[in-house]
């Protein structure tokens, strides 16, 4: 009897000692390079407080009472951007109604985003007869403030619409119409009244404010002072979110830190980086960009490594989704930033779902689905030795 009691007495005490000895905070703090979320280094106290407000708003779950829907795609920002990472096939969005530069022909029938869910008692939206559609998974959120702060001049400097340098790459910006509430900066460059887009799978939005307002409206069914039209009734209604809350979300997105590369000194990573350069993946996935002026000093005039050129590229018929935005063609896609790609699994339920619609289940599969302008890079990859392939994949996974 005594032994039994001793046994039961010692076990929990040992457990307590074991668990508490790990960390004075009882749980381990993930290293900054292990997670995508978290604020930029160097924010002021005021900016940090705003980051927290934005974080709370980003996590807010909308209900019928707070304006959700009645038709919608998701109930909150965080539902589609778990951990601020890439989305999951279960949170995929569907666009419909625009096949060429004539614009979306189905705006009056609910385009461009299909609100495929509805509050009880309502019916979700259906794709109208005759409209083509395409699915895509939500993008990663981190480092967006850096991308927003790249100057138009720098983006244009990377463009090569006629492939003047003969490298087979002919990136072009997506020239888009911008809504009235998006105020171009003094350094903005326009062409025929259009501006350069930089966010979204086809770079169809210019600023994080535009991206946020669109997502609130089209994905959650929340009207704002910037876009007061209800997606279900197509009528203008009172704003369902405070302007300050929209601004907080924008600030939050601007001040999310950029993903931090891991294992940079690993020999395999160093070798992979050299191969990445050697087979000219860097033709589109630019390893270094620079921001211009930003009122947030932590973003102002900084060099960063997003592995994108923010330009559109023809990716071949295999990735033609039959939908387009702005001046982009149906098989053109903005080069997705590769930063944070190695952490995608941690926001996608433990598996990779890469490319615009999550069809690629590994980094290698994503490479092998490259076509169009990127076909020669894919062939270069295929021709690598197995150790070189592994080094390249290790490097990409370290981003």
């Amino acid at each position, binding site marked *: *009897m005594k032994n*039994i*009691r001793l046994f*039961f*007495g010692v*076990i*929990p005490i040992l*457990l*307590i000692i074991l*668990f*508490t000895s790990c*960390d004075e*905070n*009882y*749980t*381990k*703090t*993930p290293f900054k390079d292990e997670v995508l979320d978290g604020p930029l280094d160097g924010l002021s106290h005021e900016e940090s407080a705003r980051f927290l407000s934005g974080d709370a708003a980003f996590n*807010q*779950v909308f*209900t*019928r009472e707070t304006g959700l829907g009645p038709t919608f795609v*998701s*109930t*909150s920002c965080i*539902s589609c951007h*778990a*951990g601020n990472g890439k989305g*999951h*096939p*279960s949170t*995929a969005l569907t666009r419909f109604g625009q096949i060429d530069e004539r614009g979306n022909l189905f705006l009056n029938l609910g385009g461009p985003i299909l609100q*495929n*869910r*509805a*509050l*009880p*008692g309502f*019916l*979700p939206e259906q794709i109208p007869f005759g409209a083509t559609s395409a699915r895509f998974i939500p993008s990663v959120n981190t480092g967006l403030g850096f991308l927003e702060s790249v100057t138009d001049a720098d983006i244009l400097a990377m463009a090569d619409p006629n492939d003047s340098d003969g490298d087979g790459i002919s990136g072009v910006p997506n020239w888009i119409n911008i809504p009235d509430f998006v105020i171009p900066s003094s350094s903005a460059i326009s062409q025929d009244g259009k501006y350069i887009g930089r966010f979204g799978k086809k770079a169809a939005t210019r600023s994080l404010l535009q991206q946020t307002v669109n997502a609130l409206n089209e994905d959650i069914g929340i009207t704002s002072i910037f876009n007061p039209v209800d997606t279900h009734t197509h009528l203008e209604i009172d704003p369902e979110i405070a302007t300050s809350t929209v601004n907080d979300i924008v600030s939050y997105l601007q001040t999310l830190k950029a993903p931090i590369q891991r294992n940079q000194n690993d020999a395999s990573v160093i070798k992979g980086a050299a191969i990445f350069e050697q087979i000219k993946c860097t033709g589109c996935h630019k390893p270094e960009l620079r921001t211009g002026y930003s009122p947030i000093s932590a973003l102002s005039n900084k060099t960063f490594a997003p592995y994108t050129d923010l330009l559109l590229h023809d990716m071949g018929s295999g990735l033609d989704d039959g939908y387009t935005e702005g001046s982009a063609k149906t098989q053109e896609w903005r080069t997705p930033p590769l930063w944070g790609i190695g952490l995608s699994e*941690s*926001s*996608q*339920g*433990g*598996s990779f779902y890469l490319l615009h619609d999550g069809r690629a289940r590994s980094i290698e599969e994503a490479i092998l689905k490259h076509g169009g302008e990127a076909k020669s890079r894919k062939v270069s990859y295929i021709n690598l030795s197995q150790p070189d392939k592994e080094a390249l994949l290790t490097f990409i996974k370290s981003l």
Partner: protein
Amino acid sequence: MKLIYLYIAFFISLNSYAQIDSSLLKRTQKDSIKQALNMDAVYNRPSLNIEKTPVTVGGYLEVNWQRLSTDGVSEGHQFQARRLSIFMSSAISKRVKFLTEIEFEDGGKEIAIEFASVDVEFHPLVNFRAGIIVNPIGSFNQNHDGPKWEFTDRPISATQMLPGTFSNAGAGFFGKKYNNDWMIGYEAYFSGSFDNSIIENTENKTFLAAAKNNPERFGEINSGTPLFTGKIAIRNSKIGELGFSYMGGIYNKYQEDGIIIDTKRRVGIFALDFNTTLPKIETFITSEWAWVKVDVPSTYGQQFGNKQFGGFVDIVQPILKKNILGWEKAVLNIACRLEYVDWNVGTFNETGENIGEDIWSAMPALSFRPTSQTVFRLNYRFQKQHDILGNPPATTAGFNIGISTYF
């Protein structure tokens, strides 16, 4: 003005209390941890009885210190006045009784009449109960007084999957029968019900406990259809108690002003509970597991699960029973609670992968009972919680130390 009246009433009551001869107050001692059916809990509470009056009063208080952290982030040290419950009962006549429990949570942030019923005995097997009843789903709902438990936190499954201490206006019958070592009891009530909030809430998941936030439920059934709750429990004094309970009904507002605005949607919950004390080593084990099924519109999204499952098991081992610091029959226990909840049982349509939204927790504990009515508790929690996609779990760990006592 109302506030002034309340203050006046409060000071008058203090003054009148001061004038009561304390020798007239008789403490009705109850061993709060003795074996009985869970349904007996409302009758098995220690209380004060003013001599020769039919009224008894009692209650319990729960306070604690806590420090938890999740993935390395802590809110720091917290002192929490979680709960002050006051019960009153009165024998209106020999077989007509009134019982009530009024609960103040978080220092008065939430005040609720948790229980207020008139019980009329026609026969030991046929008792009528009407008023604000606690729906007897599982065992925790019936037997939730803080001083009876070795853990400061209530079980996750009994508070965040099943609605903890879910009470509604309603009526029904209960009864029990003894035969040597055997005891069997039943309860069956029709009552107020759930509402649309169980799938339309800020938890972003099917969350039955959201219905507790609807103060209208004591005056209006959202669906216009009562909720049925029934339980059968059987106890053998040498083996233990086994309970089967069911709660179900239509939860949504499907018509308004006679106009149909939605289809009828049902919620159904089945629970199994068991408790026993192992002979010789006196290990007390109590457990409750529940299965929830909710009719969620298929167009509302997979985020709101139509099936849930969860429960807990508490193991309490007395390791010292003796006179300690002058307390006779003081008891030192070690204990552990293991619990699990899956708020969304199923797989994603798109990928066939398991839908996450689950949690498990282990909570070793030490408790000291100077008397059976008072418990000091030291709990350690280690918990892992997955989001809906099953991403790497958030890890929570930390300690709390608290006291819970009847008064």
